C-alpha cells in the first residue's frame, strides 16, 4: 500500500504535456496548493496556463480537485471556512490573491456558472439585471434593458423569453435556467467564464444547446470548464487537462490528449480502464 503511494507520488510528480503556453496567457497558475483546514490538501503543485479565447476542459475522477481549482480562479473558495491557498494565480499578469486585489472586482472579471442551475427566485429580467444593477454598469432603465436583451441574445435565450421577462426565472426548464445563469454572468461583461460541470444536471438536448453556446462564447471570453464527460471535453475544448488525486497529470491540446496521451493514468482514464 505504502509502496503504491510512493510510486504514485513519483508518477505524478510532474505534469506532462504542455501545461504552459507560448505568448501571453489570460490566467496562469504557478505552484498552486490548496488546503482545507490545514491538515487536508486538495491541490498539489499545479502549474497551468489558460490561453485567451480558448476553452480549457478539466477532467478527472471525482474528488480529484478540478472543481476546487476552478473555484480558486475567482476566489469563490474565500467563502469556505478554513480553505487556504499557496502559490500564485494571475489574471493578466496580476496576482489575484495579492492584498490590493478586490474579490468583488475580480469576480466581475471572472464569472462563474454552476453545476446546478441556480437562478434567483426573481423574474427573468431581474435575474439578468442583477449584476449590472449591483455594479452600476447600466445607469438608467433603457441602458439596463439593452444589457438584459444583449445578454439574453448572447446566451441564446432571447427568443424564448422575450415575451415573459417578468415571469420567475425558476419557472424555466433546466436547460433554459442554465442559459439564464450564463446570461446573468455575461451581463456583468466578464473576461473569463468558469463553468463547473454546467451540463451535468441537464438532459442531452439541453446539453447540446449549451455546448453550442460555449462554442460561440469562446470568441469573446476565455472559458474554463470542469466536466465529467470525456466526450464533452473532446467536443468543446481547445486544450484539455487531466487531474488525479489533486495533481494535474497532463495538459495538452485536446486532440493530443484524446488520441495520444503521454501519461499512463490519462490513458487509463480516457480508455475507461479506470474511472
Amino acid at each position, binding site marked *: 500500500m505504502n509502496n503504491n503511494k510512493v510510486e504514485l507520488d513519483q508518477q505524478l510528480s510532474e505534469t506532462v504535456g504542455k501545461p504552459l503556453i507560448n505568448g501571453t496567457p489570460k490566467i496562469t497558475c504557478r505552484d498552486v496548493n490548496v488546503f482545507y483546514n490545514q491538515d487536508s490538501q486538495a491541490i498539489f503543485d499545479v502549474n497551468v496556463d489558460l490561453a485567451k479565447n480558448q476553452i480549457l476542459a478539466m477532467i478527472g475522477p471525482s474528488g480529484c480537485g478540478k472543481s476546487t481549482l476552478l473555484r480558486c480562479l475567482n476566489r469563490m473558495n474565500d467563502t469556505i471556512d478554513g480553505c487556504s491557498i499557496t502559490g500564485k494565480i494571475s489574471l493578466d499578469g496580476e496576482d489575484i490573491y495579492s492584498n490590493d486585489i*478586490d474579490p*468583488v*472586482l475580480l469576480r*466581475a*472579471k471572472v464569472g462563474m456558472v454552476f453545476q446546478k442551475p441556480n437562478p434567483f427566485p426573481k423574474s427573468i429580467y431581474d435575474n439578468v439585471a442583477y449584476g449590472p444593477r*449591483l*455594479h*452600476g*454598469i447600466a445607469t438608467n432603465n433603457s441602458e439596463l434593458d439593452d444589457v438584459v436583451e444583449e445578454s439574453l441574445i448572447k446566451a441564446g435565450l432571447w427568443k424564448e423569453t422575450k415575451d415573459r421577462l417578468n415571469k420567475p426565472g425558476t419557472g424555466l426548464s433546466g436547460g433554459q435556467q442554465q442559459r439564464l445563469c450564463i446570461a446573468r454572468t455575461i451581463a*456583468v*461583461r466578464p473576461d473569463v467564464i468558469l463553468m463547473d460541470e454546467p451540463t451535468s444536471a441537464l438532459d442531452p438536448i439541453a446539453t447540446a444547446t449549451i455546448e453550442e453556446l460555449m462554442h460561440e462564447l469562446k470568441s469573446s471570453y476565455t472559458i474554463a470548464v470542469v466536466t465529467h464527460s470525456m466526450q464533452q471535453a473532446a467536443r468543446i475544448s481547445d486544450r484539455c487537462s487531466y487531474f488525479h488525486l489533486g495533481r494535474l497529470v497532463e495538459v495538452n491540446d485536446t486532440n493530443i490528449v484524446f488520441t495520444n496521451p503521454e501519461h499512463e493514468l490519462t490513458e487509463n482514464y480516457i480508455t475507461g480502464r479506470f474511472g
Partner: protein
Amino acid sequence: MNNIEIVQKGLKKRYAKERRFKAYGVFSIIISLSFLAFLLFDIALKAAPAFTQTYIKLDIDFSHKVLRINEKSSYTKDELFELPYHKLPSKSLYQLFPGIENRKQKKALRKLVSSGVRYNLRNMVIKNSKLIGTSKSIWVLADDDIDSLVKGLIDRNIPEADRRVKDFQIAWIDKLQLENRVESRFNINFFTSGDSREPEQAGILGALKGSLYTMLITLLLSFPIGVAAAVYLEEFAHKNNWLVDMIEVNINNLAAVPSIVFGILGLAVYINLFGVPRSAPLAGGLVLGLMTLPIIIITTRAAIKSVPPSIREAALGLGASKMQVIIHHVLPLSMPGILTGSIIGMAQALGETAPLLMIGMVAFVADIPQGFFDPSTVLPVQIYIWSDSPERSFIALTSAAIIMLLVFLFLMNLLAIILRKKFETRW
C-alpha cells in the same frame, strides 16, 4: 469608461455599505447580550440581600411568672401550646431599653423582632420543657424593616417622615450593635418555610413543593400521551386523511396558543365542569400538561423522523411487525431526542405563570403542600405574588426566588444539552 472602471468607481460606496451593515449586525448582538447581562445583573443585585438575615440576641426569661404557668414536674403539650409566648421577647426588650413609656414607642420596640419569634420560642419550650424557669440568651429574628436598616438598604439621611424606620429605632439598633447583639446570618428560612405575610419569615419551600407536585402531574399527563400521539402521527397516520390533517393543524396551533387561554380552559373545564379542587397541583398539572403536550408531540415526531428508514427496513425484512419495529428500534433510537424535547417542554411549563393564575394558584398559601390536592402555589406564581407585595423586603425575596427559578431552568436545559451531546447519533 470601460466596464472594470465603472465597477471600480462604485466599489468604495458598496464597501462602506457592507461595513455599515456588518456594524448593525454586531450592534444587534451586543444590544441583546447587554440586555441579558443587565437583566441578570440587576436581579442578582436585588437578590443579594435576601440571602442573609439579621438576628438580635435577647436574654429571654422563661420564668413561670412571665409564662403564667404553675411549677410542675411535667407539662402536657396542650398546656405548653397556649402560653403567652409573645411576652418573652417584649419583656426582654423592655429590660434592654428601660424607661420607655410612650405607647407608640413601646409598640415600636416590640416590633424590633419578628412576630414569628413567639412561635420559635414556643417550639423550643415544647421540645424542652426544662427551659421553663430558666433564663437564656437567644438569637431571634429581627423584623424586616430592621433587617433592611442593618443591611444599609434604608438611607438614614432622608427625612424621618419619609422613612419606615424612625430615629429612635435607629438609635436602639445602633446601641444593640455596639453591645454586639446584632448579627447577620445565612437566610435558612428562605429555603425551609412556606409563604408568609412577614417578609423575614417567608420562604420558597411551599412553592418549590407545589412546583414539584405540579410538574409530576404535567409529566405524567404529557409525556406518555405526547409520545403515543407522535408515534401514531409519524408511523400509522394515513397521509391526506382529513382527520389526521385536523390533528396536525391543531397540534401546531396549540403550540402557539397564548398560555392564558389554557388557563381559561382549566377554569371552565377542570374546575367548573369536573370539580377538580381549585389551587391544587392536580389542576395546575393538568393545565400545564395540556400546554406541554404539543411541544412534546412536535419534538418526538422530529426525533422519530430522524431514525433512518434503513433501520426500519432491516427489521421489517427480518419479519418483525410494525409495532415490534417501533418498540424495539425506533423508540429506543429516538429516546434521547424525545427526552431532550420533553425536558425543554417541562422547563417551559416550570416557568409558566399566567394559566395558573386562572385556576386559583395565586391564593396566599402559608402551609407547605403535602400532596396533589392541597392548595398550593408554584415558584413563578410565588414570584408574582411577592412582586405584588408592598413591603420593600419582598423585592429581595422576589429576586432571590427568580434566581432559584433560573437555576432550576438552567439545570434542566443543561441536562437536555448533555443528553443531546451524549447520545447524538450521526446517521
